[in-house]
C-alpha cells in the first residue's frame, strides 16, 4: 500500500535519507525504529508530503504522491498522531478532534461533528466532560489521547504515529500502546509508527524496519526481531553501548 523506493533527502550538506526502500502492506502495522537523528521523522513527513524528497519515489496504492491531483482527497485518507500531540491551543478539545469534520471536503453539520468527536474521545477513554476544555488544561497523557482521537476522527485508511509514547509515564505509555493496537486492528487501517521505545514496538508492530544512517538496515516480522542476526538491530533492541552503532560518551 505504501512504498518508498530510493528516497533521498538532505538538508544543506547534511544527508538524512540515503536511499530508503520500504513497503508497507494494506492493514499492516509497521514500526520504524532507529536512533535519534537517523531520519525517522523525515521519512514520515516525506510520505505525507510535508517534506519533498530530493530523489526517489513514494507511492500510496501505486500512485506517486507527487502526482496526486486532489491534495485534499489524498490527505483525507491519512490520520496522524504527532509526538507532542500538536493540538491547536485556540480551539476546545472537541473542535480539535472534529477539525477535519468542520471544514473542507469532509465537512458535517456542527452538532454531528461534535457528536462524532465525543464518540472518538470515548473510544480513547475520555469522557464528554473534557470536550469543552482547552488543550492547555490537559495533562500530557490526555493530550496524546486527544491527538489519537483527532487522528482517527475521519476514519482514515492510513494512520501515522510519531513517537506515540515519548514523554509519558510507563503506565500511560502502556495505555496508549494498547489503544493504538486496538484501534488499528478494529479499523483495519494501515499503520506506520516511528519510535525508539521497544515496549511500544512489541505492542504495536506486525513488521519492524530499522533505519540506520539514512537506510533501512533490517526489515521483518516483529516475531523475528529478537532472533535476527543483524548486529545493528541486536545492539539497538538490547540497548547495549557495545556494538557497531557509534555512541557518544
Amino acid at each position, binding site marked *: 500500500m505504501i512504498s518508498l523506493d530510493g528516497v533521498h533527502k538532505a538538508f544543506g550538506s547534511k544527508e538524512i535519507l540515503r536511499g530508503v526502500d520500504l513497503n508497507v502492506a494494506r492493514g499492516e502495522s509497521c514500526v520504524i525504529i532507529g536512533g535519534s537523528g537517523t531520519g525517522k521523522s523525515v521519512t514520515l*513527513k516525506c510520505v*505525507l508530503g*510535508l517534506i519533498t524528497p530530493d530523489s526517489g519515489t513514494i507511492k500510496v496504492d501505486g500512485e506517486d504522491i507527487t502526482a496526486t491531483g486532489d491534495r485534499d482527497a489524498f*490527505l483525507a485518507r491519512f490520520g496522524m498522531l504527532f509526538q507532542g500531540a*500538536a*493540538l*491547536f491551543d485556540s480551539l476546545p478539545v472537541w473542535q480539535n478532534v472534529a*477539525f*477535519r469534520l468542520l471544514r*473542507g471536503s469532509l465537512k458535517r453539520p456542527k452538532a454531528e461533528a461534535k457528536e462524532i468527536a465525543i464518540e472518538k474521545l470515548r473510544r480513547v477513554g475520555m469522557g464528554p466532560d473534557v470536550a469543552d476544555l482547552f488543550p492547555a488544561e490537559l495533562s500530557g497523557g490526555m493530550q496524546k489521547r486527544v491527538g489519537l482521537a483527532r487522528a482517527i476522527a475521519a476514519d482514515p485508511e492510513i494512520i501515522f504515529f510519531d513517537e506515540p509514547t515519548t514523554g509519558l509515564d510507563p503506565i500511560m505509555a502502556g495505555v496508549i500502546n494498547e489503544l493504538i493496537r486496538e484501534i488499528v486492528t478494529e479499523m483495519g487501517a494501515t499503520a506506520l509508527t516511528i519510535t525508539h521505545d521497544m515496549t511500544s514496538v512489541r505492542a504495536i508492530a506486525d513488521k519492524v524496519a530499522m533505519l540506520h544512517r539514512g537506510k533501512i538496515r533490517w526489515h521483518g516480522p516483529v516475531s523475528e526481531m529478537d532472533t535476527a542476526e543483524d548486529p545493528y538491530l541486536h545492539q539497538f533492541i538490547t540497548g547495549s553501548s557495545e556494538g557497531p552503532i557509534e555512541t557518544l560518551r
Partner: protein
Amino acid sequence: MMVLTRPLAALGAVVLSALATIGHVTLFALATFRHIVTPPYYVREYLHALVHVGYLSLPVVGLTAVFTGGALALQIFAGGSRYGAEEVVPQIVALGVVRELGPVMVGLMMAARVTSSIAAEIATMKVTEQIDALVTLSTDPMKYLTAPRVFAGLVTVPLLVAVGDTLGIFGGWFVSMNTLDFNPSTYLKNTVDFLETPDIVSSLVKGAAFGGIATLMGCYFGMNSGRGAQGVGRATKTSVVAAAVLILAANFLLTQAFFAT
C-alpha cells in the same frame, strides 16, 4: 589577497541574503493576497483576526493618539510663540496628526502589539508542529492563518488610523482649551476648515499599507521561525524590527507620492 577579498565576500553574502529575503517576502505577500481573494474562507478565523487586530488595539491607539496630540499642541504653541504665530496651533496639529503622526503612531503600535503577537503565536505553532498538523488535516496554513490576519490588518488599521487622527486632534484641542486659552469652537472650526480631502485619504491609505506590513511581517517571520524557544524569540524580534523599519520607509514613500510637488 585573502585579506582584501574576505570583507568583499562577507558584504556580498549579506547583500545576497538581503535580496533573497526580499524575494521570499514578495512571494509570500503575493501568495497571501491570492489566498485572500480565493475561497474557501475560514469565517471564524477572519472574525477572530478582525477582533484581535482591530478592536482590541483601540485602547493603545486611543491613548497614544490623545497624548501625542496634546504634546504636539504644546510644542507648536511654544515654537509658534517665538514668531507670534500661536494661532496656527489648530491647523498644524490637524495637519501633523492626520498626515503623519496619526498613521505612523498607529503603524508603530501595530508593530509592537500585533506583529509581535502574530509572530510569536505562529512561530510557537510551527515549533510545536501545529502547522504540520494543519497540513495533514487538509488545511492550508496560508489560508487558515495568514490570509485572515493580513486581511484584518488591511481593513481595520485604516479605521484605527481614523480613530487615532480624531483622538489626536481631540488631545490637541483639549490641551489648547485648558492650558493655552484657545476658544474651543474656534479651534474646531479652524481644524475642519484647514483639513482637505487628500490629507484624510493619505492618512487612510497609509493605514492600510501599515496594517498590511505589520500583519505580513508577523506571519512571514512566524512561518519561517527557527526551532525551539530561541527560534520563537528571534522570529518575534525580527518581525517587529522589520515591520517598524518598513512602516517608516513606506511612510516616506507614501508622503512623497501624495504631497511632493
